[in-house]
């Protein structure tokens, strides 16, 4: 029987297999940031261990850095960033610190440098490592104990997850984005739907997505509970990679491409589970609740908890409406927001900024609007295209690279009761600051919302 993409990549990385034990998996690339690494380095030091492959490891500062120029004013954040710098220097790890041209959100810089390639295994102490699966890599988030394990051994013991195919049938209608697609998928299968699986996104609509769009989709796999999401590499992938600093060149490139072309699920392979989604029926999608599965088409209304047959879901919906300060039956279009955030590892890439700029060009924002490039590289590219002028002319703030308002651990936060339309990935209670209320949206909806002050699809402008 044939094998799935996930099985092929997994098998290629098994260092050791023994009965009754997890596979020992080799890790090709380990990404590190300031928040989940300090205790891991401490562990190494305490045990007198070293980093086995600093040359397969790269670090950046992203989670708690401010996105305005200047030093970190919060002393605790500053200590954490300084600790990363000390650790990187001590163990010989390449680091892109604040202000460096290569700095950025960890999941943006890997692909940007061409370090993320098809068929690799990639880990990071961050759940959105699933982003890198867009290249046909197995990429997943790990905890700090596992970070220490990878630092010390460049391997991880792990059981191979089951495989799930998400078949996206047909083409996405005009105006419907990768973000809408993944939000709709999560609403369909639920935040636990992917638990225990590696998901492979397939079908015509997925093939037609740009690499940026594919990264947006794979990024949010974890929000459906899946540790990893993958898309088979194809010409779009190769074109994206060609010429990037760490992509192979010359003869090595040809050999790599030849191998990468074998990284697809065989026609006779079987998935443990198959889910189908009709792309043609999709419209712009937003969340109304406090987990990413609580979403609905923007044209619909806030659901009533009674609509949920499952008592657990009903209770969750009741709680979510209370936290969000929403009443069942309110059209989603009538929801007023205070802040719009465009950025994060979900939607902080150049294509996302172009999409937002296209809508904001010649218009004025009526809400506080933060546009935060995912990396300094993205920032530079956007400025070369003059996008920053468009944003500034519209009245939006143009920031330095970082995680920013995606999570409330740097200066960019919501105040209690404030409501945002955000292109990030989590609408959990307090995620963007204590008491903050988050609606997850695409960059297009975010930009249109900034113009009207309420959740808006660009088509309505």
């Amino acid at each position, binding site marked *: 029987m044939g094998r799935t993409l996930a099985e092929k990549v997994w098998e290629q990385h098994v260092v*050791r297999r023994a009965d*009754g034990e*997890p596979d*020992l998996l*080799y890790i*090709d*690339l380990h990404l590190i940031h300031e928040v*989940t690494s*300090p*205790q891991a380095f*401490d562990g190494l030091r305490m045990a007198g261990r070293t980093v*086995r492959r*600093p*040359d*397969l490891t790269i670090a950046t500062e992203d*989670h708690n850095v401010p996105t305005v120029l200047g030093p970190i004013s919060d002393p*605790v*954040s500053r200590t*954490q960033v300084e600790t990363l710098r000390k650790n990187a220097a001590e163990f010989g790890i390449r680091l892109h610190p604040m202000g460096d041209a290569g700095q950025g959100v960890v999941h943006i810089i890997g692909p940007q440098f061409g*370090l993320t*390639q098809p068929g690799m295994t990639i880990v990071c*102490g*961050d*759940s959105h490592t699933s982003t890198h699966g867009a290249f046909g890599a197995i990429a997943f*988030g*790990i*905890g*700090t*104990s*596992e970070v220490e*394990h990878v630092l*010390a*051994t460049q*391997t991880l*013991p792990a059981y191979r997850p089951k495989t799930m195919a998400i078949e996206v049938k047909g083409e996405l209608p005009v105006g419907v984005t990768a973000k809408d697609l993944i939000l709709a998928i999560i609403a369909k299968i639920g*935040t*636990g739907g992917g*638990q225990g699986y590696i998901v492979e996104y397939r079908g015509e609509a997925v093939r037609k997505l740009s690499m940026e769009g594919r990264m947006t989709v794979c990024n949010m796999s*974890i929000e459906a*509970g899946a*540790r990893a999401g993958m898309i088979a590499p194809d010409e779009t992938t190769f074109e994206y990679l060609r010429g990037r600093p*760490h992509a*192979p060149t010359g003869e090595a490139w040809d050999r*790599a491409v030849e*191998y990468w072309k074998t990284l697809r699920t065989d026609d006779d392979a079987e998935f443990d589970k198959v889910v189908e989604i009709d792309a043609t029926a999709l419209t712009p999608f937003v969340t109304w609740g406090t*987990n990413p599965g609580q979403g609905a088409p923007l044209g619909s209304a806030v659901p009533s908890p009674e609509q949920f047959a499952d008592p*657990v*879901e009903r*209770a*969750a919906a009741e709680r979510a409406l209370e936290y969000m300060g929403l009443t069942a039956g309110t059209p989603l279009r009538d929801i007023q927001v205070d802040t719009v955030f465009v950025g994060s590892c979900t939607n902080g890439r150049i294509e996302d900024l172009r999409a937002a700029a296209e809508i904001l060009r010649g218009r004025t924002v009526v809400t506080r609007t933060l546009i935060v490039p995912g990396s300094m590289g993205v920032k530079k590219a956007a400025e070369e295209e003059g996008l920053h002028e468009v944003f500034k002319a519209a009245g939006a703030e143009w920031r330095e690279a970082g995680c920013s308002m995606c*999570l*409330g*651990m740097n200066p960019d936060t919501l105040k209690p009761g404030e409501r945002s339309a955000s292109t990030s990935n*989590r609408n*959990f*209670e*307090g*995620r963007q600051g*204590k*008491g903050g209320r988050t609606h997850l949206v695409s960059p297009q909806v975010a930009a249109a919302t900034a113009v009207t002050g309420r959740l808006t699809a660009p088509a309505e402008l």
Partner: protein
Amino acid sequence: MEAFTTHTGRAVPLRRSNVDTDQIIPAVWLKQVSRTGFEKGLFAAWREDPSFVLNDPAYEGATILVSGPDFGTGSSREHAVWALQQYGFRVVIASRFGDIFRNNSTKMGLLPVILPEDVVKRLQDAAEADPKSEITVDLVERQVCAGDLVVPFEIDDYTRWRLIEGLDDIGLTLRHADAVEEYENGRQPWLPTTV
């Protein structure tokens, strides 16, 4: 890692689903570079509400958390496990867990126990009816006992063995350093390095 064989303690019923790791420990608490002191951040936002179950003195000293489904979803932060352990929990019982959280727990010796939703509800009911009632979680026998209820739970042999022995994964892997080296010699030549 702390070894785990069997544990008897009182339980806290947490009647919520999708308890994500941002709730278990909000991001502002993740700035520390040490491994201690996270108990103060456990459910920090929810604990501000006086009616939150952990604020009920009847549950003081409880060591088993019995939660609704999808406990520990979201962020990979192992700080969630540290916070639960440092607060005093040794076991979390739920019908479903976030994969990364479950992994992190077993690395640290916090036992995640998966039981069917109706059993979870019965345990919550019992803990609510009598906060002094005890639950025994026996990893050796792979079963949970509460009153006259005895239910088996599943956990793979390897993880169980590691937990019972309190073994450190890194030490185990380093025994296979030769295999790692051999694998490294055969890696595809075009794979990137960060230098």
